[in-house]
């Protein structure tokens, strides 16, 4: 039965199509935030100034908080932190490969540029979630927006400083050449959750465009991935060009930019394929959980009698 945007079911009455759409959307949102935060923390004692140490640490804390907010929504489908993070199959994560890429030691241009590319995309997608048909999604948007507003500004301030120096700008250009294709995967369709249907991530690249269409048709998000991607390009390309950087994309501002298959990396994250860096990162952030032999992620001691 087709649902219109304003009649998305109550959490207890979701049909299969609604469950899959909700799970797919929340995982792509939460996984992006969580994995990006894991990477940011690598910088928190290595950034070039104490203030930028603090800024990166703070941005990481923000993103972890937002990951938790999105994972919490999946509590409606019976998922807890254990299944969603520490005991989850790494192949089931649906984050963009942009956020999993490793940092080259000392290349400060990378977290700055990555943050800019990501935070512009995040602003756009939050706008497209503000009127979500799922109240728990819509209710979170304002909170997250208010905590995000400084991320993009921080990134742009640093981009402009770096672009002002020839050596730094060359480093930015090299980093942009490496990261841009991965940033495009922010707008790629997801494979459904594992086991959801034949197109699930059990088979790599088994993307089911129907799920992405459902996310919009059911009103969970009010813009398509294509619309978000085009809007993102219309912002980031002219801005980066204004810093004398060459953006590796076909097309121009008048006719719009075109994302071709050739512009995308082999691994796209969303479809369940990941770069090698992901396996290492996953191993790292689950290590303590595994070594402690924990079966509960958060309770430090038994509740008092």
């Amino acid at each position, binding site marked *: 039965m087709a649902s219109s945007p304003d009649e998305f079911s109550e959490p207890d009455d979701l049909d299969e199509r609604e469950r899959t759409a909700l799970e797919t959307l929340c995982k792509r949102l939460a996984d992006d935030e969580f994995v990006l935060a894991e990477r940011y923390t690598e910088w928190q004692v290595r950034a070039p100034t104490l203030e930028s140490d603090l800024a990166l640490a703070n941005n990481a804390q923000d993103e972890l908080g937002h990951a938790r907010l999105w994972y919490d929504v999946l509590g409606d489908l019976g998922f807890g932190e254990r299944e969603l993070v520490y005991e989850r199959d790494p192949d089931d994560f649906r984050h963009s490969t942009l956020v999993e890429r490793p940092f080259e030691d000392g290349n400060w241009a990378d977290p700055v540029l990555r943050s800019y590319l990501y935070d512009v995309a995040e602003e756009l997608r939050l706008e497209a979630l503000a009127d979500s048909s799922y109240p728990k999604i819509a209710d979170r948007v304002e909170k997250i927006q208010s*905590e995000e507003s400084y991320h993009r*500004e921080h990134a742009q301030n640093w981009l*402009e400083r770096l672009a002002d120096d020839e050596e730094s700008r060359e480093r930015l250009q090299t980093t942009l050449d490496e990261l841009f294709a991965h940033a495009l995967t922010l707008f790629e369709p997801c494979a459904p959750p594992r086991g959801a249907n034949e197109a699930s991530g059990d088979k790599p690249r088994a993307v089911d465009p129907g799920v992405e269409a459902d996310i919009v048709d059911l009103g969970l998000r009010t813009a398509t991935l294509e619309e978000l991607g085009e809007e993102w390009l219309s912002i980031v390309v002219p801005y980066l060009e204004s810093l004398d950087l060459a953006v590796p994309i076909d097309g121009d501002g008048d006719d719009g930019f075109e994302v071709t298959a050739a512009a995308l990396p082999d691994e796209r994250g969303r479809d369940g394929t990941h770069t090698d860096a992901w396996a290492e990162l996953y191993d790292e952030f689950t290590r303590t959980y595994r070594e402690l032999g924990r079966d509960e992620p958060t*309770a430090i001691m038994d509740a008092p009698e």
Partner: protein
Amino acid sequence: MSSDIQDQDSDLDIDPDPDPDADLDPDAETGATPCAYTDYRAGKAADDLPATGAEATGLESAVWDALYEIEDPEMPISIVDLGLIYGVSVDDEDGVATVDMTLTYSGCPARDMLTEEVEEVVVAVDGVEEATLRLVWSPEWTVEFVTERGKDDLREFGLSV
């Protein structure tokens, strides 16, 4: 941090899209205010918030009293006066108490500590059989939700609110 109140008071005027070509003086080379902070004062007030339980009676009133005893982990202020509690309802039939609560910051590392404390304190109220805590995020918490008594507490603690 479960509370993220800032102790400054000014209006920032940040250019969201600083002109990279502008000929800026060295102090303003980034085109933005350094050390920007969140001005919670800009938040909008909600009609029925802060909720303080002033009108509550019976078991609900007892739950509010219990909640008043819980302090924020970082500052000597009750979580009710801080404006974190958005609502309390108790079903007199089955003794199920439902508390709607928010946090000042999504990345609050004391979240579990605080929500568990609330559940324990509420379920310990005479007549309450079960406590359900619902974390809510809308409307977004702002400093406008701090009660007058809470503001006094914060001022005594050294914050200017």
